[in-house]
């Protein structure tokens, strides 16, 4: 798609979108998520606000850019030369990605120049305020040695109808650059979400994803990390908490394409009420990717009898001098732990709460920003209290 004008790409994505049928549960990646009843024609443009805090003069002087993507496409064309929106994510991925490619209309652009490292996180707050479709595109370009923390927080106001979110995030991580991408969503149950994140890591780059998914009627997030340079590293840390009739569908794929790269994935979920989840995690190691170190671990706590959990952690290994493993557990909170806490004077319900909060701490402890960690914990508390 490279070399095409933005409009050209849009037209092509639109024709792919129109050509592709709605995904059916017969397709492997939609086996546990049935969207056939969704009429995509119903979702005209919807209102959302993206809050942009200003950048300090110092950062501006250093050349950091943090702006909405429409402005960026007009004003910073030269920075996007090899990194235009949708040069990493292909609309051919699936119908929803094609839909995004055709209709994306706002979002975020971040550019961090060579050897500039930010101490404080950049943060956007996304607030959906009405029914319809929202298509945000986030493009992050990190030059060699650049470093940032980025936080996206998602909320929705109370409104009638359903908001369909169809977002994409693309990260180009230059040599020796560093980013931790934090996602936190606490939508009302009027949101259905389809999101695709993709990062390309150059030599010695580090891209960490931290995912906190609590709200929405339905949320599907797919994360692909491509290790293109030796020495690159990625962590995927995620928590989710489903209750009521929520359905979550998460995928994390790590593609080890070159030697000596490292990935560590940890997903922790809780399912209550009639909530359901599917988690797929794939470790893919190419033939030349000797010296890969890759670990995946996923856990589901099931609190009620109506809840359903699916877990498909997989390995695809074509090299031999590697370490790759995964572990998965599914079950209810440990009775012995509950008993212990009760013997210390907690009531059963409270003991369970404490165990659930402790269960998430291997993820939440990795959040370096107190206010964000508090938001995760608050969201968990709210959920646990029901």
């Amino acid at each position, binding site marked *: 798609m490279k070399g095409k004008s933005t409009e050209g790409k849009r037209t092509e994505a639109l024709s792919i979108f129109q050509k592709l049928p709605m995904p059916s549960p017969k397709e492997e990646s939609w086996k546990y998520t049935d969207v056939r009843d969704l009429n995509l024609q119903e979702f005209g443009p919807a209102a959302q606000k993206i809050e942009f805090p200003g950048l300090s003069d110092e950062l501006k002087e250093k050349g950091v850019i943090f702006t909405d993507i429409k402005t960026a496409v007009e004003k910073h064309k030269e920075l996007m030369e090899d990194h235009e929106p949708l040069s990493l994510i292909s609309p051919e991925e699936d119908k929803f990605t094609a839909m995004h490619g055709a209709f994306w209309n706002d979002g975020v652009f971040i550019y961090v120049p060579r050897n500039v490292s930010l101490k404080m996180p950049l943060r956007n707050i996304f607030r959906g305020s009405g029914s319809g479709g929202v298509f945000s595109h986030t493009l992050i370009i990190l030059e060699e040695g650049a470093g940032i923390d980025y936080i996206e927080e998602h909320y929705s106001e109370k409104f009638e109808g359903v908001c369909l979110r169809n977002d994409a995030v693309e990260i180009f991580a230059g040599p020796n650059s560093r980013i931790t991408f934090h996602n936190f969503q606490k939508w009302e149950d009027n949101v259905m979400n389809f999101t695709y994140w993709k990062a390309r890591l150059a030599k010695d780059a580090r891209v960490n994803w931290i995912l906190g998914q609590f709200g929405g009627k339905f949320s599907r997030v797919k994360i692909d990390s491509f290790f293109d340079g030796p020495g690159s590293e990625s962590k995927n840390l995620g928590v989710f908490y489903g209750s009521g009739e929520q359905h979550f569908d998460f995928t994390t794929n790590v593609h080890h394409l070159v030697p000596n790269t490292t990935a560590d994935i940890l997903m922790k979920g809780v399912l209550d009420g009639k909530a359901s989840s599917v988690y797929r995690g794939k470790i893919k190691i190419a033939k030349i990717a000797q010296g890969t170190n890759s670990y995946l671990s996923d856990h589901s706590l099931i609190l009620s009898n109506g*809840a359903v959990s699916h877990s498909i952690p997989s*390995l695809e290994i074509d090299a031999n001098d590697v370490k790759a*493993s995964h572990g998965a557990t599914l079950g209810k909170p440990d009775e012995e732990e509950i008993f212990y806490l009760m013997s210390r004077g907690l009531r059963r319900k409270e003991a369970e709460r404490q165990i659930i909060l402790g269960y998430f701490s291997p993820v939440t402890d990795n959040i370096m920003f107190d206010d964000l960690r508090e938001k995760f914990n608050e969201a968990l508390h709210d959920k646990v209290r029901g």
Partner: protein
Amino acid sequence: MAQADAEEVKNFLGTEYRYGFSDPEKFAFRTEKGLSEKVVRQISKIKKEPEWVTDMRVRAYKHFMERPMPKWGADLSTIDFDNIYYYGKPEGEQTKDWDKVPQDIKKTFDRLGIPEAEKKFLAGVGAQYESEVVYHNLRKDLEKKGVIFLDMDGGLREHPEIVKKWFGKIIPFNDNKFSALNTAVWSGGSFIYIPPGVRVDLPLQAYFRINAKNIGQFERTLIIADKGSYVHYVEGCTAPVYSTDSLHCAVVELAALEGATIRYTTIQNWSSNVYNLVTKRAFAYKNARVEWIDGNLGSKITMKYPGVVLLGEHAHGEVISVAFAGKGQHQDAGAKITHLAPNTTSQIISKSVSKDGGRTTYRGLLRVAKGCKNVKSSVVCDALILDPKSATDTVPYMEVEEKDVSIGHEASVGRVSEEQLFYLMSRGYSEEHALGMIVRGFMDAFVRELPMEYAVELNRLIELNMEGSVG
């Protein structure tokens, strides 16, 4: 086996696939090449089958033709269904006396060591050559206790009421494309019934041999272990090495009734031109136990996922699977456990080794249905990759609809550690020998579950497969 024997074994057996010899092709009858409704009806007619069996065959044939090839798993696009003979009856009639088996065929089974093994440590033996069972025998004392051990065609003739009750009930013909193919053209296989409370201490064995070129073997096995009984069934399989492909497509149905135990051991060592596409499933009722011990060493492509459906409380299902993929081989094996009753337990252990460009895949499904409280299950998959050309995949599915469960899954992939090798070599073992020891140790969980004679045999096979792994 003792380590000192390694050299001896190597000298004795040479480095070739040991079972690659062939005999002249002599058929009493063979259907025309390729598959058609006519061929299906012809097989049924030769066997003088009741109408319900013919009907089922024809329905299955139609389903096979309509059903697309699976889009997942190993690459099956190279199977030429038109270039296969679907039924071939060897000369001679089934007998209980090895001396009455036609000379060439007898010689083959002698070389495979079957009559000798029968004398030593088996309670009964069936030997299938191409499409038919040529030899079948069960110890007299077991016959007296009411144990039935026949080939499947004999089972259908002599015990139609049991067969009709179970045949195609555990694995319906439309379960998958290859169960449909088997149901359309099946011939041979074993039929076993163990009466309530009877314990068959020594294993019953079936041996499957393909001899001719381009022939398909489609045996069908049904084992019913009645209440509180015990049986261990062992199957082995080999074929000559040909440049054209053969197809082995079996269906195996087991029913372990209340309190019964079935242990089913397979040592699959087809030659490297055989497609091995097998459907195996067991029903385990209350307090029953089913164990699949599944070893895949041979074949070009294997796709096989032995299953246990746990239907009654306190039933237990177990799959211990090892796979060894060498040059040009893809072992796509695994397990399927379905918990449909509370207080049921299961365990899956999978070990695989790939070398010389081979690929192993573990593919598994663990399902816990709603309301199945107190289910416990553990899945462990380990893969060793011995060189940079080889590959492995792990694809486990876990579907859980109940909270009162404890499910654990672990998988790891790696190479043989330099430290282990160095340690053994510092103790005076050659690198090749040390590697062989490490691989055998890795597969120990499987080998331990085999009857002693088979364990020795399997160790030999591993030894042979490991040859030339160094350097």
